[in-house]
């Protein structure tokens, strides 16, 4: 009898914990954050990334919350405190879990995440918001990124479609990231009521054909930009990238300046950068864009002196578990000192799945003194 009582007592204590670890499929919503200290908050905004010194968080801001008494205020200074040029925050369970310990929740049955957000002034840009995507020993079972998002002055609800995804282990419940390029003067914004929900009417999000023109780079601080110049190759130590150069942009207030010094930092004798979606996706993440409507990619380029030789400009061609659907290359190209438009013909090519939107590569053999060059207005048309 004593044994039975003991077992029942243990079960009674364990049940709430077990119940917490797995959502009830009948449950209609699962809250990430509702209000400061709310009992139904399940994740902690502990995963600060990039220029963490640029972030200030007030998780009990009473300044016009969307619901309840508080919302979370973020102030991003864009000062590049850690020299990264970007910053972000992940909501994790348990706190600071970068996949090194077991945690998270089984969110099977949920099929969307919603949140409310607003900017202090309007026009603040989140490069992306994320659900899942934390790697490590205990990786999340799904990765979804949505963005960029240009915030409005008033509260607006945003939805991330998760239909059809494996949500059986989600440690990174929600996250945001942005860059100093997108917010050169910083950004103050508010987030409220983040939660997973069940929406039986929602269907899996197929890749939609993107409308043209589709920009890779327009100007430094515009949400129209797509793809991230994250795929540094070869002698990456030889390359300096400035995505906000003011040195005679072709159009708008900024252009891209690239300095390749040809010092063979990694011993390769060449270097290049791929613009990827998401960042650092070498075909490992099922993402990218359907650019089937594009018939060409155009961009403007010039050399600092003229005569700089770029071996290749390229669209697509990333090969991995999730490879680009095609690849088109032009080059070698000798740059002029003046801006000149170049075009990569995409007619007849399969642009339905592109994770590597644009790429350049140069080598030291043809640029013994290195090369400084500028790019602007890179877009699919």
């Amino acid at each position, binding site marked *: 009898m004593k044994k039975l009582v003991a077992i029942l007592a243990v079960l009674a204590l364990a049940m709430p914990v077990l119940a917490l670890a797995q959502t009830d499929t009948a449950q209609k919503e699962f809250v990430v954050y509702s209000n400061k200290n709310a009992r139904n908050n399940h994740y902690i905004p502990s995963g600060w990334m990039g220029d963490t010194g640029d972030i200030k968080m007030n998780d009990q801001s009473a300044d016009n919350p969307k619901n309840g008494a508080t919302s979370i205020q973020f102030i991003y200074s864009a000062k590049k405190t850690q020299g990264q040029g970007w910053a972000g925050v992940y909501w994790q369970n348990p706190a600071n879990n970068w996949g090194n310990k077991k945690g998270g929740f089984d969110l099977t049955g949920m099929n969307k995440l919603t949140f409310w957000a607003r900017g202090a002034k309007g026009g603040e840009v989140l490069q992306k918001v994320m659900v899942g995507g934390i790697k490590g020993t205990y990786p999340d079972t799904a990765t979804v990124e949505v963005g960029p998002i240009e915030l409005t002055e008033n509260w607006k609800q945003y939805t991330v479609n998760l239909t059809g995804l494996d949500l059986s282990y989600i440690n990174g419940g929600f996250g945001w990231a942005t860059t100093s390029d997108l917010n050169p003067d910083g950004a103050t914004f508010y987030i409220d009521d983040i939660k997973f929900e069940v929406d039986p009417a929602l269907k899996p999000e197929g890749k939609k054909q993107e409308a043209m023109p589709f920009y890779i780079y327009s100007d430094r601080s515009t949400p129209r930009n797509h793809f991230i110049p994250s795929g540094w190759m070869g002698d990456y130590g030889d390359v300096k990238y400035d995505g906000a150069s003011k040195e005679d942009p072709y159009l708008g207030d900024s252009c891209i300046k690239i300095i390749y010094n040809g010092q063979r930092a990694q011993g390769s004798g060449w270097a290049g950068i791929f613009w990827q979606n998401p960042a650092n996706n070498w075909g490992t993440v099922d993402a990218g864009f359907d650019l089937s409507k594009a018939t060409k990619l155009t961009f403007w380029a010039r050399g600092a002196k003229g005569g700089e030789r770029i071996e290749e400009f390229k669209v697509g061609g990333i090969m*991995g578990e999730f490879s680009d659907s095609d690849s088109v290359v032009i080059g070698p*190209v000798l740059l002029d000192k003046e801006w000149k438009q170049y075009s990569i013909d995409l007619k007849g090519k399969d642009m339905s799945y592109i994770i590597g939107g644009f790429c350049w590569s140069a080598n030291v053999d043809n640029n013994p003194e290195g090369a400084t060059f500028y790019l602007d207005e890179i877009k699919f048309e």
Partner: protein
Amino acid sequence: MSIITLKALLSIWMRLSLNKASLQLRDGSQHKACLSGRRTKVSPYRGRFKIGLRTVPIICIVFLFFLSGCKQEPRVYVKHFKNKDYQLRVDGRPYIVKGVCYSPIPIGKNHEYDWWSDPGKPWLVDGKLMQEMGINTIRLYQAHDDIEKVKMVVGDLYEKYGIRTILGSWLGFWEYPCPFYGDKKFRDRVKQEVADMVNSLKDEPGILLWVLGNENNYSCLGHVNPWSSEEIDREPDPQKQKNMRAEIYYSFVNEIAEELHRIDPNHPVALGNGELVGLEYANKFAPKVDLVACIIYRGKTFGNLFRSLRATFDKPVLISEFGADCYDAYSKKEDQNMQAFFLESQWRQIYENLAGNKNGAGNCLGGTMFEWTDEWWKHNPDDPAGWGGHDKASNWTNGSYYYDIKVEGNKNMNEEWFGIVALSPGPASELDIRSPRKAYYVIREFWKKPDLNNRKKKVKTR
């Protein structure tokens, strides 16, 4: 007019003639005796034809005259259907190239080893294993100088195992210091060498087709074995230089293809090409080639290759080199499952794009996977000390073989581990022991029953 059609016409005519002959001999009877001895009903044309035995030779002469005016089908050719699909035909029948690249270098030797003269005749052992697997074709990159040895290998494989040979030529690509495609003397010499080879071997029944070059197109970009000419050097624009080299190279291939068609109308001529690079120039300057033989290493998929080819150079394609190594550079151990997974996926795509598959591009003729046996000399070709060891190091990277791409430096391609069949040292003076890997059995089963709706099936890789 096809041989089959002619045979059918001849057969009908013979029956008709013999029936009439019988009628003349046995006029009035209800039945006649054919040469076969069978009894058949009287022809319904009885009495309407006035053909006697004496007229048969005249008809024969007229018919032979008719025959001489008909174009005879080549022994091997590419059929182009109305729906634009392409299909390889051998002796009038569809032929899917189920092939393998063959270079049986034994352990301890390098590429200079003369395996054609090996007293152990490795092709006999290999041919039997290949036949059991279902292989119907081997690809040889270059013929031996002694054409009799080539005839022996090609003949043995065909006569004993029914395996045909695709024979290639490097087109002088590996000559030192570099191929001089801009030099007429060089071109004339190479062209003559290829013509001599084809002249000597064109009547071998085991020959399937000819391949001109391999990845020579990369030299036009200067990526490998760069070459130039005075005219090209005078051009300051590197893009135009590339165009000029491509025009010279593909025009040269076209010239050889034209010559080979003249010498040997019975076998197609393929353009060997690395990836699809430069084929927009081939479209302009090499229209005489019958097909493209592409070297493709894109992991589990060929991507948009087949449809892309339709847009740039609408010729049938043989995937003449593809495959996967079986060494996991990340886990540092052999992984036969990984190799089998990639190969099966690649063969599935090849089959999806054969003629007649409405979901594919219909322009694939088959493939020759790389390669039959491991080659233990490849990682360090210049160091004889390394030829006797199975080197696990890698010197190139390819992200589409993603299982082991996380290895330090991303060098995941293990050049000495591409064999469908593993080698291990045999008794002294005997051939190395051949041990089929998992891919051997997986592909054998796929060929027996190609399952094109099996995308979700995965071979366990860990």
